[in-house]
Every structure is written in C-alpha cells, then in structure tokens.
C-alpha cells in the first residue's frame, strides 16, 4: 500500500521527465503561451503533438508500426501526468485519438487506414465524434439522421448536437440510420466524413453558461462514398460500442475550484456569526468536500494500481463524475452564498477568485449532464458494476419508425 512507482515505472517517468524538460522548453520558446481558442493555440497544439509523435510519446500504447510506442497503459498515464505538470497539455486530440481513429483502425479498409492514421497521430488532422442528436440524448441509438443509398453513394440528412470541436475538426465519424424499418439498434451504420464538405454546417450552441464551446452540426444532402463506411450496413451500433469502449481512461482530476479555494475565500469573509471560516456548518461542508475529493483522487490511484499490475481496472472509476459534478455545484453555490449579496457579481475584476465560483455555478449543471447524466451513470453502476437488471425495455423489437416519440 504505497504510492511509489515500480522500478520500471520510475525509469520511464525519469526518461519522460527529461524529455519533457527539454522539449517543453523548446516548444514554449517557439510558440509562447497563446490563449486557448485562438488560432495560435491550435497551431501550438499541433506542433506539440508532432513533436511527441516524433519522439514516441504520442499514442504510447499503440504499436510502433502505426506511430505509437508499443507502451503500456501505465506508461501512458505516467506520461500524461508529467506532461500536465510540464504545462503542455492540449485537449484537441483526445477524442480523435482516443475514440475516432481507433474505430477507423478497427473497421476501415487498408487504404483508409494508411491515409488517416499517421496524420492523426502527428496532429496534422483532428477528428470529432458525431453520435449525439437532439432526439437521442441518453438514448443515443434513437438517432434520426438518415442515410439513403444512391448508387455507390449515400446521401445524408439530419442533425447532430453537442459535438466537441466540430468547428476545428477535419474529419469525423458519423453514426446514421440507414434502415428505419427495423428495431432501433439494428438500422444504424457508421461512416467517416470530411468535416470541410460544404454540405456540413457547424453552428455553435449558446450555453446557459454564456459560452459557445459545443456545436450543432447539420447535414444537408451530404454525399459520402460507400467506401467511407466503417463496418457493415446495419452494424453501426456494434461499431459505436467499440468507439465508446476506447474512451480514454480518465485519470485526470476534475476541473474547477475545490475545497482549498473555498477555504481561502472564507478566510477573509464575515459570516452569520463571526468569521465565515469559523462557522461550523461551513467547516463540515469543507470536510465533506475534502473527503470526497480525496476519495476520488485515491480511487484514481487504485485504478492506476490495477494498470500498473497489468490488470484491467475495475469499475471504481465510474463514480467520479457523479460526485465531482454535484460537488462542484454545491461548492460553487456555497461559496457564492457566503459572499452575501456581493455573490451576485460576475465581473472577474470584482468578484473574489476572479469569479471562478460564479462561473462554476453556471457550468456545473452542464457537467451533471454531459457524458452521461447523473441518472444514466447510476444506471451504469447498478447494471454493470452491481449486476442489477436493466430497465424494462419496450423498444427492443419495435421498428424504429413505429417507436413513440415526443419532442
């Protein structure tokens, strides 16, 4: 029961650190410290990915033959930790290399693999995942985007939603309905598409938090070749499951302020009965947040231990977002309320901690929904971890077109 690397892990970490020390500095010298969402930031990200690929630090667990390093999952985690410490993490490639390209590798023909894998590893091309739809939500397979065969082409019409990075991506994997006359999971097919096609339109979604980080993507008579198909016609759901299984092991901490920031805030505030930090109710909340945060941190350590031992991690890691998203909402709200009437202010120049609590308060509702709602995650724990029965399914044997729908 300790936190030390094994000798092999320590050696790898040492090597990674040395490489990072040198290369992060060189990278920064070239690219400076551009602000996120700027073109300069994207360019820096691509350059960093290319540098990693050249040194065998991109896609560490992939075979060397396709641009990886033939490494272990724990090596990948270790590099990620050191990379984050070195301050050179870029999020652009996570979904493409973690989910999309592995799907391409599993289902595309050799020409397609040859064409796409290497540029993706080197950061030259970025991929997005086009599954979610307005009518889908938690029920992903209820999607309605239609592909109709027309000679050797397919013609696609419909809409995707909440697509991360759609506006900067080059390619995407797209799940569509090719047969509405069979039950919902059986009429789906997967394609790869060119996001620059004129028939593809990205519109940013205006979120309740005020930002526009996600997209709707509309397809109007988009023509794709049958050779862009990934897997068989009607096998799209099986292909999508492979994509989702490839979802990268989440070993990072969650974003946003935590108990430390609230403690810092409370130090300077007066509360109901003297200093806010001396308020016992506030202190008990601090304790609960600390305990949960530590619980998640050490749960990640347990996951890494399984990786380190060459085992498949257990289902412990599925508890993360249920706790962290709800806690962020509660923590942010408590911090805002502790500021009194002043808590209403959102100007970063005025509000304590540059209005981080106010921003988190508006973000947290999205965190509780994105990537699986609280309710879906509890279903997953109940069914996949505890082995309890699934919900009663009325849609298993009904043709998709006959399924009741609402909005």
């Amino acid at each position, binding site marked *: 029961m300790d936190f030390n690397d094994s000798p092999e892990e320590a050696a790898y970490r040492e090597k990674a650190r040395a490489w990072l020390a040198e290369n992060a500095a060189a990278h920064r010298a070239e690219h400076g410290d551009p602000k996120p969402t700027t073109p300069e930031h994207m360019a820096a990200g691509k350059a960093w990915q290319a540098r990693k690929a050249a040194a065998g630090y991109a896609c560490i667990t992939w075979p060397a033959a396709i641009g990886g390093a033939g490494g272990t999952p724990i090596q990948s985690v270790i590099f990620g930790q050191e990379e984050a410490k070195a301050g050179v993490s870029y999020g652009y490639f996570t979904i493409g290399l973690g989910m999309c390209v592995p799907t391409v590798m599993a289902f595309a023909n050799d020409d397609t693999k040859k064409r796409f894998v290497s540029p993706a590893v080197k950061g030259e091309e970025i991929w997005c995942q086009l599954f979610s739809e307005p009518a889908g939500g938690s029920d992903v397979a209820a999607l309605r985007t239609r592909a109709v065969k027309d000679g050797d082409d397919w013609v696609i019409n419909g809409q995707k939603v909440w697509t991360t990075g759609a506006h900067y991506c080059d390619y995407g994997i797209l799940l569509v309905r090719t047969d509405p006359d069979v039950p919902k999971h059986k009429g789906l097919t997967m394609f790869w598409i060119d996001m620059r096609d004129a028939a593809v339109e990205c519109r940013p979604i205006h979120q309740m938090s005020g930002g526009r980080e996600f997209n709707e993507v509309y397809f109007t008579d988009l023509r794709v070749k049958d050779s862009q198909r990934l897997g068989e016609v009607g096998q799209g759901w099986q292909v999508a499951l492979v994509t989702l299984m490839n979802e990268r092991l989440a070993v990072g901490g969650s974003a946003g302020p935590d108990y430390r920031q609230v403690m810092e805030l409370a130090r300077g505030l007066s509360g*109901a009965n003297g200093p806010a930090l001396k308020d016992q109710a506030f202190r008990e909340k601090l304790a609960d947040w600390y305990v949960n945060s530590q619980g998640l941190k050490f749960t990640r350590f347990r996951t890494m231990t399984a990786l380190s031992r060459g085992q498949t991690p257990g289902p412990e890691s599925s508890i993360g977002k249920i706790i962290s998203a709800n806690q962020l909402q509660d923590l942010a709200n408590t911090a805002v309320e502790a500021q009194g009437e002043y808590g*209403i202010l959102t100007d970063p120049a005025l509000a304590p901690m540059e209005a981080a609590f106010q921003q988190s308060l508006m973000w947290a509702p*999205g965190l509780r929904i994105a990537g699986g709602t609280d309710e879906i995650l*509890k279903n997953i724990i109940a069914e996949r971890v505890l082995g309890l029965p699934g919900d009663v399914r009325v849609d298993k044997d009904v043709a998709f077109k006959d399924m009741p729908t609402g909005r």
Partner: protein
Amino acid sequence: MDFDYSDDQKFLKDEARKFLAARCPSTVVRGVLDDPARSYDDGLWAAVAEQGWLGAAIPEEYNGLGLGRVELCAIAEELGRAVAPIPFASTVYILAEAVMAHGSDAQKAAVLPRIAAGELIGCLATSEGPGVVTPSSLQARVEGGKLSGVKIPVTDGDAAGMALVLANEGGRPGLFLVDLKASGVKVETLQSLDPTRGVARLTFEGASADRLGEPGQGFELVQAILDRAAVLLAFEQLGGADRCLEMAKEYALGRYAFGRTIAGYQAIKHKLADMYVKNEVARSNAYYGAWALNVDAPELPTAAAAARIAASDAFWFASKESVQVHGGMGFTWDVDCHLYYRRSRQLSLVAGSPKLWKERLVSELEKKNAA
C-alpha cells in the same frame, strides 16, 4: 380554520397570472437578459403600475389600493412565476414597506404616492463588499446630513430614484433615505449572475441623506425591513419553484428515451416528487409568513425566517433539477431553465442568504424556548 387565499384573493391571483402571461412572456425577460444596456423592462413596469400593483398595499390616502399584504403575496407569487424583469421587490417589498412601517408622515407623503404612481423606484444599499456587513465593518457615514461612502452591490441601484442606505452617523448606525437623482451620487451598472435584474455600485460623495426611524437603529431597522421583505420574496421564490416543476414535468412527459416517456422512469418521477414535497413545505411556510405579515404578528421574525429558508431551498432545488430533467436542452441559452436558475440565486442572495436566516431563526427559537 381558513388557511388559504380567499376567493377574492384567488381571483386577483388568477388575473395577475393572465396579465403576466400576456405582458411578460419569456421573450420580455430575454429582452432584458440579452441587452446589457437595460436593467429592467420599463414597458412592463408601466403596465404593472397601471394595474395598481405598486400601490396594492399602500393606503388609499397615499393613492394606493389599500389592500392587505396577502393580496401582495398573491401578486408576488405570480411575478416570481413569470421571472418578471422589474424592480418590484426593491420598490414595493422594501422601500414602500419600510416607509409605511418606519417613516414619518412627511416621508410617507413624499415617497408612497410616487411609488404607487410608478414614478419612483427604490433600492436597499447595505453591502460594502463580500460577506456580511456588520457594525464593525460599516464604512459609509453621514455627517451633517451628507452621506459619503461606497455601496456595492446595490440591487436595482441603477434603476432606482431613491435608496435606503445603511450608514454611521455620529458613530452610530442609522438608515437613510437618499435621493439618487440629486447631486453627490455616482451610479455604475455591474455584471451579475441574473442580468434580468439590475445591479449597481453607488458612490456617495456628500449626497443629502434623510434619516428613517431612530438614530442608532440602522441594523435593527434593516432586519425589520427584511423580515417583511422575506415573506414577499418567499412568494416570488415559490412561484418560480412551481413553474420549474411544471416545466420539468411538461418536458419529461414529452421527451422519449428507450421507447417511452422519461416521465415514466422512477429516477425522474421521484425527482419531481421531491420537488413537489419541497414546494409544498415552502408554500405552507409562506402562507404562515403571509398571515404574520398581514396582521403584524409577534411571530413575524420566525415566520419570515421559516418562509425564506423553505422557499430558498425549494427554488434552488427546483431550478437546478429542472435543468437536469431537461438534459442537454436545459443547458442551452434558448431554453428558459436558466432564467429560473439565475433568478433563484438572485432571490437567495438579495436579502440575506438562507444561512443567515437559519441563524436568525434559531436565535429566535432560543429566546422563545428560554422564555
């Protein structure tokens, strides 16, 4: 036993709902939300004035309707349901009520008719920074009838013509009426969590200040004013919470997943049941507050605290879980969930956090139990 709105009061409430459905759909709320230059909807304000709501509880001698406080609660409930983007609370629940309860005859004559006519917007200026303002932290001061200091934030401060300002006078805290249109007042609009309500920084440099009530009683007066306002705010919160439950229910019924409406899943059903339970607890406590406010009962401090605590809890829960029931749609700007989420925070922050009211409630219970 007659612990509910009367038939007349129900009629008034129904009429208010119809009026607001016509005059304050969410497009009106969004008109203020999306335009940084506007801190309230002046068309709606004028219409509300015309309905007589601003003077609903103001005696007829001051050109009000002279109705009871329960009628005002009914109006508040509907304003909350509509997320009305107007400075009604600051003007009616706070300034008008404060002047009626604590003002001199001259002050009443100067303030109340103007409020009833829709000519004067009020605000309460106590905060001077993050956290709770206390006798030892209070900086604003009045010397020779002239006020100096900075109040931040002041809800509706950018729309208001008159402020109630907490300030020291001769080293003792007092409460003062200040004409914001006179000289020595600087008003700056600030960004806030709920852009459908205005928030400002008021800087006073020798502004004329007219004391309300006795010298040295500033904090006691603010508390007495907030006791009254808390009951009325609780009805706004209750109206908002009810609407969140309705919206979540309507959405859930119409949304299908895995071949059936999500309203049939226990996770959703029980969440909506939890909302209902909290809303009913809030309603019952609010009614008791309305009774205490209406008859000026000695139980007002505990009744107001209980009403505010229950209503704050219900609105927060309903507004955040309504987003959750709406799923991804609920997180978009275009769906109305966030209007309620924002307003629930505004209403919890504006007259003392639930935490402060819990402390006040238990202090009162201690006194009662000791007696």
